[in-house]
């Protein structure tokens, strides 16, 4: 049945920011009624029309891999998590607008996903000394989403949004701020929906339409245990 091509997008962020609610909203257009702790990784699928409205319109499956956990967890958890970071085509970084630490931790999350070969040992990157060079040759499209917008007081909104704008610039990514319990933020035609659509289009483009020689950009297969590589078995 899956005659469509597939694309894999990671959804990363601290626990409690609302990744599960976000993924549910994106894939099922409904608000998640009873969010609970995510153990391991939960996946959901969104059917996306690439280049909607144009003659080249094509439908793709976008797999959203919601990886749970905290960025400062035990190294055994990190090693297990790393198995989900194989051949990723796009990353959505989720943070909580009411919790500054969750946005600071996004740097560590992105490093963990990008540098999968190095076992992350608490590399603390603070706002000021963030090293953009590490992202200079990064080819994976990023999107920054801030949740719980409704819980920010009107007065503090500007300050928070400015800070987030800097954050998104650091990642060279678009940013969306919304409230996962209210579907109107992603209503068709709104600027958020357009940004989202553009992001998914970019991911699909990078995966299927831009070829560098004969190599499709993405992650090279990780070499583990000094020997064989892990084959990805797909059931199509």
């Amino acid at each position, binding site marked *: *049945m*899956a005659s469509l091509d*597939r694309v894999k997008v990671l959804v990363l962020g*601290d*626990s*409690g920011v609302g990744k599960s609610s976000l993924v549910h909203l994106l*894939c*099922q257009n409904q608000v998640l009624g009873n969010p609970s*702790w995510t*153990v*391991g*990784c*939960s*996946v*959901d*699928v*969104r*059917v996306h029309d690439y280049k909607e409205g144009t003659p080249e319109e094509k439908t793709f*499956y976008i*797999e959203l*891999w919601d990886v749970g956990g*905290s*960025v*400062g967890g*035990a*190294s*055994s*958890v990190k*090693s*297990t998590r790393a*198995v*989900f970071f194989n051949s990723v085509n796009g990353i959505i970084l989720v943070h*909580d607008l*009411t*919790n*500054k*630490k969750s946005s600071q*931790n996004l740097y560590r999350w992105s490093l963990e996903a990008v540098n999968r070969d190095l076992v992350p040992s608490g590399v603390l990157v603070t706002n000021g000394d963030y090293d953009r060079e590490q992202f200079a040759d990064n080819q994976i499209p990023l999107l920054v989403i801030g949740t719980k917008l409704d819980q920010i007081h009107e007065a503090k909104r500007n300050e928070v949004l400015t800070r987030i704008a800097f954050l998104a610039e650091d990642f060279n990514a678009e940013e969306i701020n919304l409230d996962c319990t209210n579907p109107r933020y992603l209503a068709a035609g709104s600027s958020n929906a357009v940004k989202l659509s553009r992001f998914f289009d970019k991911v699909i483009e990078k995966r299927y339409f831009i070829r560098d020689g004969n190599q499709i950009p993405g992650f090279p297969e990780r070499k*583990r*245990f000094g020997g064989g590589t*892990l084959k*990805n*078995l*797909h*059931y*199509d």
Partner: protein
Amino acid sequence: MLVGPSDQNPICIASVIVSHLQVFFFGFGWLFFMRQLFKDYEVRQYVVQVIFSVTFAFSCTMFELIIFEILGVLSSSSRYFHWKLNLCVILLILVFMVPFYIGYFIVSTIRLLHRQRLLFSCGLWLTFMYFFWKLGDPFPILSPKHGILSIEQLISRVGVIGVTLMALLSGFGAVNCPYTYMSYFLRNVTDTDILVLERRLLQTMDMIISKKKRIAMARRNLFQKGDVNNKPSGFWGMIKSVTTSAPGSENLTLIQQEVDALEELSRQLFLETVDLYATKERIEYSKTFKGKYFNFLGYFFSIYCVWKIFMATINIVFDRVGKTDPVTRGIEITVNYLGIQFDVKFWSQHISFILVGIIIVTSIRGLLITLTKFFYAISSSKSSNVIVLLLAQIMGMYFVSSVLLIRMSMPLEYRTIITEVLGELQFNFYHRWFDVIFLVSALSSILFLYLAHKQAPEKHMTP
């Protein structure tokens, strides 16, 4: 530091010194809270941080007063005054403030009761007080001559809870420590085991994805046909759905159930993989120098653990309570049997200082580490405030009971102040209670660890 006309009054000087130290402890508690406990969360309610640091500061002051007692620092009247003062404050915190705030924060997270938060938190606090009071009934902890509203009533109950906690932690720790240190118990985990599990995990994820694709596509087709809700509505709707099968529509509920089962499986596989990685790391660690050292310590601790269990059983069976403390007994042995003569008074003071100091430091450190582990394991961004306050309550009760029990490790002349300040509690009861709970906790931990150890390797043994 003020040293002026007030230096005639010893209590004033003592207060200055003690309050400086308290500020220092408060700062330490504050930093610990910020750097360790709440390092991934944002502190929004500073009340919580203040309460935690205050509880920590006053608990540490109690220990500091014991040390002062042994070393003979400050005059005994000022020490007594500060003891009483500190005790009152700590009881106030543990019985009134912290439970009230716990109730308040619990009520705050429930949206329904938001309006009358104060009312409901008072209600919760009264319920807590009722059960707290009832706690004293089944235990023979008070002599009848104590009035209803005396410090002894509160201390005795706090003591029961705290001693239970101490014995539980102590029993589990005594068994768990050699189990984790010794490499004898480490299961043999090879790289292939991990690879196999990971492959299964990814396969399961792929199966989940393919099923979800079917659901998503089916839902999209139905949506495009105009049936937003794919449930049959009304009599004709039901007939229609039975007789016709629209192309692309399948029994979505069945697929959804399969997905739920697969998701549960993926969670289990994930947890097992984490376990295997942790074991592999421990195996690698045990080959290092530090690992070998800890392995050796593990053997030593297992002997110590067996001895403690044995002693606890003897104490209970023969109903005996030690009268002399280890320091005096040790000195007696050296003087009488080994014939070494030395200044008993001088040495007993120093040795008990060192011994009591070690006990205090290790119990504080051990408790803080355990609390941190618990906190990381069970807290989430919503419940972090409540959990931290619960931990502060546990910490306070734990420290108060340690003072109760530490009395046994000190020579007679230093015990008097604790006996005076705490009133005439039945100290023997507490020691007996500690032994009973310690025994129960240690034996059940052994049983639990044995079962867990047995069951695990059968799951993923490479044939």
